[in-house]
């Protein structure tokens, strides 16, 4: 009997100690109350936050078959309790305005809305500030842009988008200008300061035919430079085939003193550039980084880096570097590793399959950390025959979100370190894809990554199999802290079953350098949690 008690106590101590070892202790997690939510609705977006709380914007589908949209803004206090919720009414006299976006600058919330005047054939853009108490737009509308689509159909009336500079002192509002198919794409942009005072505006006609050029992203620098990343194709996109010589990435850079801009082709001889992201560093230099391949667009072999003076177009640093075999095989099982090593020893190309670039972190020294994730869709078709002889075929799509990779590149273009964080998420539900992938925050000099994981992976060791979470019952939300030297540890943030919530990474947000808001949802309920570092 005495022996049994000793064994039981030892077991309890062991379990407690194991739990203590795996729980995340570098930050305090506190949950707010639960609220009702439609999981099929849009994910709420935290648009503004301060010491008193934060404001959350949501679009809700309403009406017959969800054809209508309601725009809701809600105010939460620092305890994550909902204080007020209101539908944003966008009307000017009897005219309905269309909400374009909600943006926060300088602790103010701006509502940007448009009105298509079909008589004048102009699409006007206005801003209003949101009254943080009533949660309604102030009455004063200010017109900040217009798209003239005279001579074109009403459906060719353009659309507005925006990007904010890294230091949040500038906002670029850009829009498509109407053009005929086969012409060069045209668009315009305005650069505003963080009080919506216009600094300058510009209209651009791209130097490429619309059918041979695709814009992939826009960004604005801290001093108001406007840059876009695009892909030039040798053939029409509709007949495009994968060949290394078939497409070329370009960074097009414009600013107040150079409205006609500079076209900077990004070429790695004999390599495919599979992904390129662009931004600007604290010295307002243009930084581009991404992945390349020797085989095709489905795999990556290494990363590249380019640093450019946007005023002169001079390349200040550029490099590309192949990933090491150790890095590529680090999360493989022993069997997979053996197979890959054998392939490499025969001189065959070894690459990492189905990786997408997910983000780029600009470091103060001009270097970057490139973040990628393995993502692919597996299509499985099953055929079954019933007892009466009828044949049924079903097709299931499995969405896989796997390992996260980080490549730390210094300002000279050298890879300082690479790291692969093992992860397996798989779902057949397009809605549950919202719980896939990961969220990134920067805390001090660490990169903090939050994602949903299988509980068994918490004790994962290199070479051992990694378990896939289906984002159901067996789901634990984990925190991976990546240190400045690339070393990382994985700890449990919360268990989905105990917390009655699954983290939706895309709705999480870092609101201060030490605070992250987590969005957790389950069924028709959601709640926020605060993570204080």
């Amino acid at each position, binding site marked *: 009997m005495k022996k049994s008690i000793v064994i039981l106590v030892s077991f309890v101590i062991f379990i407690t100690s194991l739990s203590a070892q795996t729980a995340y202790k570098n930050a305090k997690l506190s949950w707010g109350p639960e609220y009702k939510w439609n999981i099929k609705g849009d994910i709420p977006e935290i648009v503004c936050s301060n010491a008193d709380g934060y404001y959350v914007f949501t679009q809700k589908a309403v*009406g*017959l078959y969800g*054809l*209508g949209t309601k725009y809701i803004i809600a105010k939460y206090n620092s305890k994550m309790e909902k204080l007020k919720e209101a539908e944003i009414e966008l009307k*000017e*006299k*009897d*005219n*309905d305005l269309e909400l374009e976006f909600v943006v926060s600058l300088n602790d103010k919330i701006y509502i940007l809305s448009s*009105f*298509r*005047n*079909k*008589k*004048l054939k*102009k699409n*006007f853009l*206005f801003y209003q500030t949101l009254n943080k108490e009533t949660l309604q737009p102030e009455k*004063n*509308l200010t*017109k900040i842009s217009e798209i003239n689509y005279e001579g074109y*159909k*009403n*459906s060719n009336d353009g659309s507005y988008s925006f990007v904010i500079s890294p230091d949040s002192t500038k906002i670029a509002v850009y829009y498509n200008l109407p053009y005929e198919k086969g012409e060069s794409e045209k668009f315009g942009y305005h650069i505003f300061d963080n009080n919506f005072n216009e600094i300058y505006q510009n209209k651009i006609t791209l130097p490429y035919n619309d059918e041979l050029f695709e814009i992939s992203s826009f960004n604005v620098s801290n001093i108001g430079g406007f840059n876009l990343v695009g892909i030039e194709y040798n053939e029409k996109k509709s007949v495009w085939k994968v060949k290394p010589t078939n497409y070329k990435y370009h960074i097009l850079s414009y600013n107040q003193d150079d409205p006609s801009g500079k076209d900077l082709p990004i070429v790695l001889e004999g390599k495919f550039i599979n992904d390129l992201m662009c931004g600007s560093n604290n010295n307002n230099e243009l930084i581009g980084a991404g992945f390349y391949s020797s085989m095709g667009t489905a795999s990556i072999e290494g990363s590249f880096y380019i640093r450019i003076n946007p005023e002169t177009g001079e390349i200040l640093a550029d490099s590309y570097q192949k990933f090491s075999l150790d890095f590529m095989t680090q999360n493989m099982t022993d069997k997979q590793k053996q197979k890959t090593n054998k392939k490499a020893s025969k001189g065959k190309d070894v690459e990492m399959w189905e990786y997408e670039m997910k983000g780029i972190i600009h470091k103060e020294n001009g270097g970057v950390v490139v973040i990628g994730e393995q993502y692919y869709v597996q299509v499985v078709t099953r055929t079954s025959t019933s007892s009466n002889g009828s044949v049924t075929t079903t097709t299931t799509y499995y969405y896989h979100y796997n390992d996260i990779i980080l490549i730390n590149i210094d300002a000279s273009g050298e890879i300082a370190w690479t790291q692969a964080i093992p992860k397996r998420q798989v779902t057949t539900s397009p809605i549950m894809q919202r719980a896939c992938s990961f969220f990134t925050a920067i805390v001090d000099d660490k990169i903090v990554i939050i994602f949903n994981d299988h509980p068994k992976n918490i004790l994962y060791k290199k070479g051992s199999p990694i378990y896939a979470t289906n984002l159901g019952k067996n789901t634990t939300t984990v925190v991976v802290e990546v240190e400045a030297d690339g070393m990382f540890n994985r700890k449990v943030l919360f268990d989905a079953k105990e917390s009655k919530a699954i983290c939706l990474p895309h709705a999480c947000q870092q609101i201060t350098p030490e605070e992250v808001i987590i969005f957790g949802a389950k069924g028709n309920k959601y709640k926020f949690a605060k993570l204080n570092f």
Partner: protein
Amino acid sequence: MKYLVLSLFQFILFTISLNAQVNSSNNISQYFDDGGISNASNIVEFNILSAINGDIGITYDRKLSDSFSAEVGLGFIAPYYTYEFRHPLWKLSEDLEGLSGYSLKIQPKFYVSLGAPEDSYVGILLRHRHYNYLSEPLGITDICVMYGTRYFVDNNICVSFELGFGYRNKLLIDPYSSLGGLFDHLIYPGSIKVGYLF
């Protein structure tokens, strides 16, 4: 006197500020001066081809979103109704003497360009016509896939063209009818409509 000057000065300032506010409001108003057409989502149309055919009616098309609209219609079958030109007109005047009835239609429409209610669309037309054929009541139900396009010739005035194909089901209301030779068949309806946006 000093007090009077001060009051007068304040009054002028107040007037200027009020005027500035009104001007600002007027400045904004100019962007919304559109004769009420920009947010208009209702169109009433008259089908010219159908009227020539003997089905005189109007339709009401309501924009539901940038990609969807729904049209409903009501018509009167006139004595000169020509059964979609399948019979020679001279014969019809003899066969369908005193013919009259009604037509109903409903047609949800999908606009690929997100430009509803302007631009090209694809719709499913469900139409029912009820009238006497050789003195016997006859119900005709059509279900068709329609492709159409709508142009605005003026701010409020529009013209629509539609073509489609579908299936016609004919039902003799009297099961003991002596009429024979009425079979279900494929149809290829078309329309030209003029409409008013409000």
